[in-house]
């Protein structure tokens, strides 16, 4: 795939010394720009391990990850951190906002932490992103003062604040009720269309997976299935 934002090439990940456990077994995957890919599979199938490797939070035992044309296996820790900050966004199941900070400060964190000094543009961008996710009136609220759905929307705004080409979402709706789940996924879909952001979504929820453009199934660390969804499947319930 020529316009791939991500290529995972023959990645193997093993844990332990002596007797080794293989979490990923020769996984190869390419993700195109603007796709929403669901990563599904039973517990222990290697979804989170693959997401950590794609997210440059972990290194593969063998194989390589090419992100936006950059072979990440050649980068040191500092290079990985810089690339992660600029080309990747993260949304976690438990949103993982920093409770001591307001919504807008949380959204500013990636750019602020990377650049060191805040700028007016940085704040304006964070505020625009919060308005984009429908939280224009909650900017100065502390994370702990927001509802679960609102917190997850702040997390999405944080992930997208630097306009990364790829956002990795680990069970983004796993901790939300049905209504909030639908709202959060709708938001991701809208941002995907408006900003052309690519999403990889790890999910156990078949309804969420069905609404993605593509479903990749992992079983025992291998790619067991990889298919595009139909328009009927993607139609919101």
């Amino acid at each position, binding site marked *: 795939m020529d316009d791939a934002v991500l290529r995972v090439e023959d990645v193997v990940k093993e844990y332990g010394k002596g007797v080794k456990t293989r979490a990923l077994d020769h996984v190869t995957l390419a993700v195109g720009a603007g796709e929403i890919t669901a990563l599904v599979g039973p517990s222990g199938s290697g979804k*989170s391990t693959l997401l*950590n490797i794609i*997210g440059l*939070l*972990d290194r593969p035992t063998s194989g390589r990850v090419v992100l936006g044309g950059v072979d990440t296996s050649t980068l040191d*820790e*500092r290079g990985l*951190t*810089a690339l*992660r*900050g*600029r080309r990747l*966004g*993260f949304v*976690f199941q438990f949103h*993982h906002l*920093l*409770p*001591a*900070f307001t919504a807008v400060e949380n959204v500013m*964190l*990636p750019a*602020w*932490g*990377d*650049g*060191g*000094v*805040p700028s007016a543009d940085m704040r304006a961008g964070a505020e625009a992103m919060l308005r984009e996710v429908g939280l224009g009136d909650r900017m100065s609220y502390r994370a702990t003062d927001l509802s679960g759905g609102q917190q997850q929307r702040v997390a999405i705004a*944080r992930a997208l604040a630097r306009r990364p080409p790829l956002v990795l979402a680990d069970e983004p709706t796993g901790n939300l009720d049905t209504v909030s789940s639908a709202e959060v996924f709708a938001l991701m879909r809208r941002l995907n269309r408006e900003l052309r952001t690519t999403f990889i979504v790890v999910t156990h929820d078949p309804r969420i997976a069905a609404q993605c453009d593509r479903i990749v199934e992992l079983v025992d660390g291998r790619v067991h299935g990889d298919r595009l969804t139909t328009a009927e499947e993607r139609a919101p319930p």
Partner: protein
Amino acid sequence: MPFEWFVALRYLRDGKGQTALILAAVSVGVSVIVFLSALINGLQTSLVDKTLGSQPHVTLRMPRQAPRPLVEPTASVAIARRIQESSQRLQSIDQWPEVVSTVERVPGVIAVSPSITGAGFAVRSDAKSAVVIRGVEQERFLAIIDVRKKLVGGRFELGGGDVAIGSTLAKDLGVGVGDKIRLASSEGVDDVVTVVGIFSLGNEGVDKTWVITSLRHAQALYALPGGVTTIELKVADVFEAEHVAVDVRGRTGLQSDSWMKINADLLAGLSAQSSSKNMIQFFVALAVALGIASVLIVSVVQKSREIGILRAVGTPARRVLMVFLIQGGVLGVLGSITGSALGALLAKGFESLVRDANGAPKFPVQLDASLFAFAAALATGVGLLAAVIPARNASRLDPATAIRNG
């Protein structure tokens, strides 16, 4: 505000209870250091002031007279090994005006006073006291020992037959200002003099024995016309007196004794006191360091998931390191400010509460800018050092593990 400062201050503000507790601990530690240092420094200064209130910083006199053999030993003449010490008579310093002008140019010397110091007796009616007769040039002597400030009666104006005497001696002799006493020198010369001033230098030995008269009068009493037996110096830094004494000895060839040499026991006591103070400061600083370190280590554990998130979203490890170093430094600085204020209050309170019969502070405290600067530097340094381990732990956290397990 830079990211590291913002996050560090927000964490401190967010953990109010924890921050308040550790600040209280640092403040108490710093206040103990300030209080103890102020007390011990004050006591030492007071002791040194009292000691130097009645003695010069450096005293020059002729070298002791050594016995000289009448016959030099040769290969055929052996000399008996027993050598009798020479008796020391009062002798004048050769070319003393030249010596005075030489030592006046020695770096660190701020006052020079030529004088005669000899033994004698003060007699009034049946009362007779052994005394030390000091013949001085009035103004030069006042620059060394300010007797005028220590007068308890009369004045310090030494005319021909006028003397100022110590307060205890005045009581022993039963004399007051304007009374006359007979003064007899060890050279067998005596004279009737008028007591014009009575002083109390706070040193019992001095107040009981000193009789101060003019240099010219003393020269007559000791049959040393135009001579002086000692040259006394005052130096700018009292603790440099020994160095100055060595310098002057080299330049003049005279016996040169500093107050530090004469009061070696006092200095040893002061030194022991300083060592105790340093030990206490060390252990207090250690306790403060352990307090800050333990709080920050707990903070790193509590916030490991947040640290993982920060790292995951692209925050470099060095910024995470700085977040915790800044917290340690800020705790140290704030603790030093409140601790210094608390220590100063305690010290001043203690000084004003504990007083002697005259109402003077029994424990004079010494609070100066250098003490506060030292406390601030110590607490900040300790805070930063204590934060190094937690900060390194935080910066080395694996983001994936921290997010998963945090």
